[in-house]
């Protein structure tokens, strides 16, 4: 029933889904749109890994801009069109950059000031790395609570904990990240 080119969601559903991190909406948006960018990058001197990096950067930009209401859809293909345009621009930026002239290794991020928040890239990368280092349970509990917005009750059930235990564990996990962040800041 779900075809890659057929959009099962209205713009409102997409926007609300992005704002609430609804897994089904994010998954659909990612999986239906990525192949287009892979084709575009492949046709313009890039490979699959580069396509993936560019697309994920663009996805995060769209996610940020939708949530901060910087982007408001106007027509039927607005969100997907916006995502494609940003990814395409990012790839063109990369091709024009001096980085590309010297090497084919894609490891820098491009700052298009009109698209991105000026959030510290290095903090992001460090936090991402620290998040990955957390144990499986910690990652899962933080992801469920802060990202998927599940209630503590639901999470406790999923882990077969009491709600109090779930809350304690969440606090401990977040403390671990907090400590890492303090070391980075100092």
């Amino acid at each position, binding site marked *: 029933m779900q075809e890659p080119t057929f959009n099962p969601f209205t713009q409102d559903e997409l926007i609300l889904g992005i704002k609430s991190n609804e897994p*089904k909406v994010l998954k659909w948006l990612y999986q239906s749109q990525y192949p287009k960018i892979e084709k575009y990058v492949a046709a313009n001197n890039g490979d699959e890994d580069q396509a993936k990096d560019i697309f994920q950067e663009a996805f995060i930009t769209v996610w940020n801009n939708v949530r901060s209401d910087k982007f408001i859809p106007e027509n039927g293909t607005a969100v997907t069109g916006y995502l494609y345009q940003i990814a395409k621009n990012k790839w063109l930026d990369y091709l024009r950059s001096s980085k590309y002239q010297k090497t084919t290794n894609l490891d820098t991020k491009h700052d298009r000031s009109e698209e991105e928040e000026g959030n510290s890239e290095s903090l992001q990368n460090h936090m991402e790395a620290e998040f990955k280092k957390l144990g499986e349970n910690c990652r899962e509990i933080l992801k469920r609570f802060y990202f998927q917005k599940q209630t503590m009750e639901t999470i406790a059930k999923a882990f077969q904990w009491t709600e109090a235990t779930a809350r304690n564990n969440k606090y401990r996990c977040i403390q671990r990240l907090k400590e890492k*962040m303090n070391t980075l800041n100092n």
Partner: protein
Amino acid sequence: MDSNNLYSQQEFERIESYILGLMTEEEKLSFESELKIDQNLKTRYEDIKVLLQEVELASLKDSMEVFHAELKSSTPVVPINSKKPFTWKPLAVAASLLFLLAITLWVFLGNTTENEKLFTAYYQPDPGMVTAMGTNSNYEFDRGMVDYKTGDYQAAITRWEKLLAQKPHNDTLNYFLGSALLAVGDDKLALPFLQKTLETESGIFLKEASWYLGLAYLKSGNNAEALKYLQNSGREEAAEIIEKLK
């Protein structure tokens, strides 16, 4: 200035519930007035806010990796510019998959009754309806519709069953709950909900509900009931089925 290092679970949860918008209006006002005068609290609040944003972003990246891996494992995309030598292996794999599919279909259809064959030939799940998510009262219904439209009928059923307790006579709810049950193959469970849809006065789903009732009865082998509902469905295909049943 190491104050932001040490805070209790209670304090953390209080700040967190402010950031996540989980406070009551009263708690919120009192927190905000404290925030204005307590510099320590303000520092902690800003710290935790950044931390939670980072957790969300890290979770998004984590999710994207999962989406990507799924995409790559289900549909390998052949790069347009690739000039790989031709190999027979993918063809051989495809051929054996087709063969397996043929066997499965043969076993499956070979063992079903005429009625089930007809059902399979004509049944297509209702594609679902456009919802304007965001209006509060229908939020749960709309969430279910997102599940439904992505083919996760079981999740939709779970949401809507809860909702039905509050709105037992809502025809839209009854109709889509019935449709979702039919889609997961629970045709007998679907019947009462589809029938309930017919009892309502607004009648927007009368034709659709009749069509699916007809198909559900067809599947369960009750031809008399099937004929009755198919005739009321006004569908072109209904005439074909009726012809074949005679």
